[in-house]
């Protein structure tokens, strides 16, 4: 895993974010324009715009029911958008199936952990490596050399990925028997195994204590640095969001109400109103 030793300074860009200088001239990994979705008559997300640089960590926050997870589901096309365009690496995702979106370089975790519980930790990661392995059903059933070559490489790769979170010794455990925190980490490892350029984390710190959250914060930065990928995360833990994100988008009732650096967001009266309500006067 290559590390990027030095990070370039943050510079403001038209989307309202601060972006790493090195990312400015590159196409954004994710570009969303006027995204919207209706459920029957209910407008769940309306006019959602954002862009995400190659190695940026962005946060998506907002009160409960604001439409954050819906945005994630739209990004992976689990829900088809009614309006607007999503571009990943400059390619339109319209009409693509979720597994095709994954192959385009978007990996995600889920709010309520979705692991393959009855399979081992190693198998979970190797399912993430599914599309990295190249051998046909015939080659598998007749155990031709390509089967062994691919399996050997992916075994090592899976263990290497697990060692990122120091979980290589749990490789033979059943995924469902892991402690809660390890299950969350395994879900991230499985997502990373698909070789994404954009990682979507849906409430990664849910149910974690402060020290675990701190650890997670460090890990999210490490993921960005070592894999050189962009991370978009939904989170309610403000310490984590403010500590790790380069840019933040605040969503309420399906609309973006604020956008900017953590400092701006923290002092934005609109955001404070959305979270705490208006002072009676």
């Amino acid at each position, binding site marked *: *895993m290559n*590390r990027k030793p030095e990070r370039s300074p943050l510079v403001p860009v038209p989307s309202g974010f601060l972006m790493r200088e090195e990312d400015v001239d590159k196409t954004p990994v994710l570009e969303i324009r006027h995204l919207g979705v209706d459920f029957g008559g209910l407008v769940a997300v309306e006019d959602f715009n954002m862009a995400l640089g190659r190695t940026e960590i962005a946060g998506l926050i907002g009160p409960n029911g604001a439409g954050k997870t819906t945005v994630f589901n739209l990004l*992976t096309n*689990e829900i088809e958008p009614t309006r607007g365009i999503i571009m990943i690496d400059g390619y339109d995702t319209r009409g693509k*199936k*979720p*597994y095709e979106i*994954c*192959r385009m370089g978007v*990996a*995600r975790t*889920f709010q309520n952990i*979705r*692991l*393959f*519980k*009855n*399979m081992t930790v*190693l*198998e979970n990661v*190797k*399912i*993430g*490596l*599914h*599309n990295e*392995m190249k*051998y046909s*059903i015939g080659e*598998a*059933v*007749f*155990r031709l050399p390509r*089967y*062994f070559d*691919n*399996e*050997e*490489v*992916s*075994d*090592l790769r899976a*263990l*290497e990925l697990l*060692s*990122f979170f120091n979980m*290589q010794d749990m*490789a*033979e455990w059943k995924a469902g028997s892991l402690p809660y925190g390890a299950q969350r980490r395994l879900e991230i490892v*499985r*997502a990373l*195994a*698909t070789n994404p350029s954009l990682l979507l984390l849906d409430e990664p710190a849910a149910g974690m204590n402060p020290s675990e959250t701190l650890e997670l914060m460090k890990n999210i930065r*490490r993921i960005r640095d*070592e894999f050189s990928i962009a991370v978009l995360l939904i989170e309610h833990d403000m310490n984590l969001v403010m500590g790790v994100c380069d840019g933040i988008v605040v969503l309420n009732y399906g609309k973006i109400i604020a956008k900017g650096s953590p400092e701006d967001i923290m002092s934005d009266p609109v955001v404070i109103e959305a979270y705490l309500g208006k002072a009676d006067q």
Partner: protein
Amino acid sequence: MSGNRRAYFKRTLLNTCLCLAFFVTVNYMIGARILNRYYTNILNLVLIYVVAAVSLNLTCGYLGQLPLGHAGFMSLGGYTAAIITTRFSIPDIGPIPGQAVLFFLATVAGGIVAMIAGVLIGLPALRLKGDYLAIITLAFGEIIRVLVQNIKITGGAMGMGGIGKYTNFSWGFFWTVMVVAFTFLLVNSRHGRAIKSVREDEIAAESVGINLTYYKIVAFAGAAFFAGVSGSLFAHHICYLEPGNFGYNMSIEMLVMVVLGGLGSISGSIIAATVLTIVPEVLQTFATWKMIIYSLLLVVVMIFKPSGLMGDFELSAARLIRKIFRRKEDVPQLPENYTEGEETDEQET
């Protein structure tokens, strides 16, 4: 570790030897009349049901769907093969008897017809889940039954006689080995993992790049092929086919074998198919109590071991030998000299 060549070749060698030993022993026993014709018949029936149950385990246990039309595929395979063997004949090629070649080709053809039907029914049906899929496949099985009843080539409701008794222990054993090897080798590959991931969590599987429809069709087609094969073996075992042979009762019977043996366990399916074929025969003498004991067995197993006799555990000769010689299991590990950025990481921060 699935990618370990040496372990794989050792295991394969061991299993091949065991299979050969079993085959030779039983064949000798049949030849020496230690197993009389009655027992041989039961043995053949056991093997036929093993082929059907193991193939159903692919869709039911590994893919995690609930298909109730397995008998429909068996019916298609059985009738196709029977039509071929009754209409055509192949002359002997040197030492190879033409009749055996014909039976093999007919069985494969039966399997392929069932597989095509499996893909055709699978394309629309696999968009549905659970109960809905169960009902569609149930309807499919009934359609096949009624179709067979009403067309001429299958003999209609009168049934179809004059089928040669080609199924013997060798053929049954050959196809059993085929279906077990196919299922085992498929399941322990990236394709099999993809199939299992569909069972575990469809949304998560799709989010890591698994093409759900493709793998559902693959599992469905594979299961249908071997169901067709077992149908062909069945046809050439009882020598007389009538549409009622492959009613939905048979589908349910197959399902019972798979669930009782353990969803996702090949050895479980084999054991359950064996037990559930032999028990009714043994209980023949207590005819009145037969069904009660049979049903009671199911109730008891489901209460005390709802995951089936074997759960998802597999019997393994290699593991047994390792246990006897107290050798360690080869757990996948990173190489000794493997270095990661860990140490340098801490120095920097």
